[in-house]
C-alpha cells in the first residue's frame, strides 16, 4: 500500500452542515465523563454569560473526523483505515461551540511524510459557524496527525 504523496496541499471544501444540538452536547459530555453544568444545564450556561449549552473542549473532533473521512475514503489517497493510528491532536478555539451552532469544516492536507513503510499525514480542519446570509465566523481550528502503519509495522 502506498500513500499518494500528491495529497499534500490538497483541500476538501466544506460539505455538509453539522447542527449542534443540546442533547448531542450532553451525550458527548457524558461520554467523556465531563461533569461541568455548562454542558448540561442551560441556566448554568447562561449564568456564565453564554447563550446556550457549551460544548466540551474536544467536541469539535466530531466535525473534524467527518471532514477527515473525506480524505480517508478518497480512493486516490490510498489509506487503509484499519492501519491508522492517531498520533497527535490539537484544538484552537477562536470561540466556544454552543448548542444551536450550524458548523461547516474545510479540510486541508498540510503534510505527508513517508515513515518506514507507512506515512504520517497531518490534516487541518477550519471550522466555521454559518451566520445570516453568506456570513461565517471562525470557530475552531483542529490539527491532527495520523500514522498509517505500513505492512509489518
Amino acid at each position, binding site marked *: 500500500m502506498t500513500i499518494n504523496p500528491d495529497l499534500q496541499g490538497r483541500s476538501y471544501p466544506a460539505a455538509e452542515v453539522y447542527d449542534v444540538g443540546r442533547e448531542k452536547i450532553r*451525550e458527548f459530555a457524558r*461520554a467523556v465523563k465531563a461533569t461541568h453544568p455548562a*454542558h448540561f444545564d442551560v441556566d448554568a450556561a447562561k449564568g456564565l454569560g453564554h447563550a446556550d449549552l*457549551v460544548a466540551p*473542549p474536544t467536541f469539535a473532533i466530531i466535525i473534524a473526523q467527518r471532514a477527515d473521512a473525506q480524505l480517508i475514503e478518497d480512493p486516490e489517497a490510498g489509506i487503509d483505515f484499519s492501519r491508522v493510528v492517531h498520533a497527535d491532536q490539537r484544538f484552537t478555539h477562536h470561540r466556544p461551540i454552543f448548542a444551536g451552532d450550524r458548523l461547516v469544516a474545510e479540510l486541508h492536507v498540510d503534510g505527508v511524510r513517508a515513515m518506514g513503510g507507512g506515512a504520517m499525514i497531518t490534516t487541518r480542519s477550519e471550522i466555521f459557524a454559518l451566520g445570516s446570509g453568506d456570513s461565517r465566523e471562525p470557530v475552531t481550528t483542529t490539527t491532527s496527525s495520523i500514522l498509517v502503519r505500513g505492512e509489518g509495522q
Partner: protein
Amino acid sequence: MSLSIHELSPGQEIGSRTVEVTRTDLVKYAGASGDFNPIHWNEAFATGVELPGVIAHGMFTMGSAVQLVTDWAGDPAAVVDFQTRFTKPVLVTDTTGTEEPGATIEVSGLIGKLDAEANTARIDLTVVAAGQKVLMKAQAVVKLS
C-alpha cells in the same frame, strides 16, 4: 470565574482526577463521537491488527483528561487551546458484568506557563495508565479573567 494571573505561578498544581474506564464506556464514546473503529470494541479485531487487546480511543483519553482543567477554570469556554500527542495505548480489559473498571487513567495538572500579555495560563497535564504516560505534551491554554 475568578482566576487572576497575579495569584498564579508556574509549577502550581491544579489537582488530580481518576477516570475509570470500562468497555461500555468505549461503546458510549464510539456512539457519541462517531468513531466506530472496531479496535475500540472488538477483541478479535484488535488482536488481529497486532494490538494487545481493545484500546481506548485516544480522543476518549484526551477528552476525559480536560475535565480537570475545566473544573479549575470554572467555565469550559475558558479552554481556548488544547493539544496532545498520543504515545501509548490505554488497554481496556473486559470486565463486563462486574463492578471493576477495565482501566484506570490518572490525570494531574500544573501550571506550565503564564502569558501576561494574552492573560492566559498553560496547564500541563500528566496522564498515566498502567504505570505509563499515555499522553505527551498534553497542554491546555486557559483564558483568565
